[in-house]
């Protein structure tokens, strides 16, 4: 209830164990099977003692190892957009909708690793300057528009 459970014990070991219990050999595989599902929902599925930011950090660690950080960044954006814009990209960017978009993009850039911060800013600028079609809802990191805005260019 206090939320403190998620921060006791060996966090990495707990994440690994929960993922394995669910039949996946990596956190990435677990998450890939749940594309565009918000991070907090992934955490809830792994247990009340798992926090969304721990899942985020674990996914990033695996992406760093595989040199797929850009893909990870796209993946997180898809999750943030589906969390914040349940009906997809709004048809009209009135004040209320603009705030929803701003909240989702703001959170995404806060969750973006330092290496990708500038690129994330440019993606946000591009989305607002040339809005995607109404109802656009990227279903994962392989969404065509996302890939165009943030192509893989891992060294």
């Amino acid at each position, binding site marked *: *209830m*206090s*939320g*403190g*459970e*998620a*921060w*006791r014990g060996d*966090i*990495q070991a707990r*994440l690994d164990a929960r993922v394995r219990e669910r039949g996946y050999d990596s956190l990435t595989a677990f998450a890939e099977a749940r594309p565009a599902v918000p*991070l*907090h929902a992934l*955490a809830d599925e792994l247990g009340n003692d798992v*926090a*969304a*930011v*721990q899942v*985020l*950090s*674990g*996914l*990033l*660690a695996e*992406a*760093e190892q595989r040199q797929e*950080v850009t893909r990870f960044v796209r993946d997180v954006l898809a999750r943030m957009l589906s*969390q914040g814009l349940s009906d997809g990209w709004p048809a009209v960017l009135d004040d209320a909708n*603009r*705030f929803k*978009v*701003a*909240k989702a*993009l*703001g*959170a995404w*850039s*806060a*969750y*973006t*690793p*330092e*290496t990708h911060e500038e690129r994330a800013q440019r993606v*946000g600028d591009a989305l*607002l300057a040339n809005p995607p079609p109404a109802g656009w809802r990227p279903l994962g990191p392989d969404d065509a528009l996302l890939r165009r805005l943030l192509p893989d260019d891992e060294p």
Partner: protein
Amino acid sequence: MRADALLLAMALLTTGCASVTQPSGPFAGSDARQRLWRHAGPRDDATLAGPGNGAGAVGGGERNAALTRQAILESIDETKGSLEDIQSTLSKLRERAPVFNGRRLGSGVFTRYLDHGAGQVTWMRGALGSATTLTGVASEVGDAGLQWGLLRMTGPRLQAAMFGTLLLATWVDFLQLSDALLRECPMCSDEKVFADLHRVQTLMEPTLSDLSALDTERVEAAALEVPQLMGKLSREFNAIHANARSAMEQGGKVGVAAQVLEMPAMLSTLKLTTPRPPASAPATLGEGLVMSAGGVMAGSRIVVSAEWVEMMRRLVQAGVLSIPVVSAAVRIHGGQVLMAQAPRDLPGDVREALGDSPEVRGMHVTNKAKAGMPEAPKHHVLPKEHREWFEQRGFTGDLDIDQFCVRLEQAHHEAIHGGGNWRLGRTWPGEWNQLVMRALRNAELRAGRMLTSREVLEIVAERMTDYRVPMNFSSGRGP
């Protein structure tokens, strides 16, 4: 407790009690107290799905939140109404012309006691205003967890005002008695009346001062002391009353004594009476429940209205009020019978009827003693090194960032501030303050305008969810 213990039951109880009270005289104190707990009109029958662990219930969650808001607003309104009555009584006391000897409460050294009452009214109004503001903000936010968090923030304010108003109404009773003595009892010296009031004021002082601090823990502790304090106050009242009577009778004023001391206004809430069921008996939290509690309460009933129980249950489930505090209120409601019970606890069935459950207990932040945990330190959710930034976005007064503190265990606190080894990815620091400010500043940039306080809270609430920071806000100035 003994037969001479105070009885608030009649005047405190419910709508049904209206017929028991005295005809309206020049004084309004008793009315004020009745109103404090009165609930007119049937309440919507609501499903009692609780708000869950603060993350918000699904389905009926919104309706549930709306009902909780309504319960809070009703409590606020009633307490406000009581305060208005008290204020009007205070003005009447101030303005009443002297009778024959020129003595009255509204002049000379005694005015300080009227001023004391007026001063209390001021902070209680402030607390209620603040609770109203928070309820309003809660109604505007989309995030369910945040909404419950904001509603729970009204708890200490509401509690302080409710119990403060009760004490203040009692203070007004003493003032009325003193005014009557000054006017009608030549044998009652100024010095004696002055000293009596001073003693009563001193008795109330620590509790009132804790209540007026509006700090979660202090308010709760003070509220729990109120039933006992009311017992002491009733003994004071009875002693002053008895002394005056005997002085007047010795002075050969038997007839006057009867007139003065038995006049309707003196039959105040502190007057010794025997509990009677209200005429239009409201549903009782009654025999069934109480009798089953090992027969302890045999022959007596706790009489409170079904509406009141429902309102309290809702507020307890939402975590706005704690069970111990509601128990204190019930014990005051129930008068002497319940005062005789163990100082803190109501019979289990009564607690159950009020919505007590391990779940609910665990939800209330101030109940960590029961969880067997030491009190975790408080931390600002909105980084205080950016206080000015928040102030510019409306975080002042009731929404000051000091109002948004949460208790976190050391490990939790260190982890979210960049400690521990949980950050598996190297290139994302995940430090709370930086992260929150990045999310806020970026959102503002994208919105193309300054965020409102509501929007800031929504963004922060999402991050709190992601860090599993509980949305149990309390005020604090800690780190």
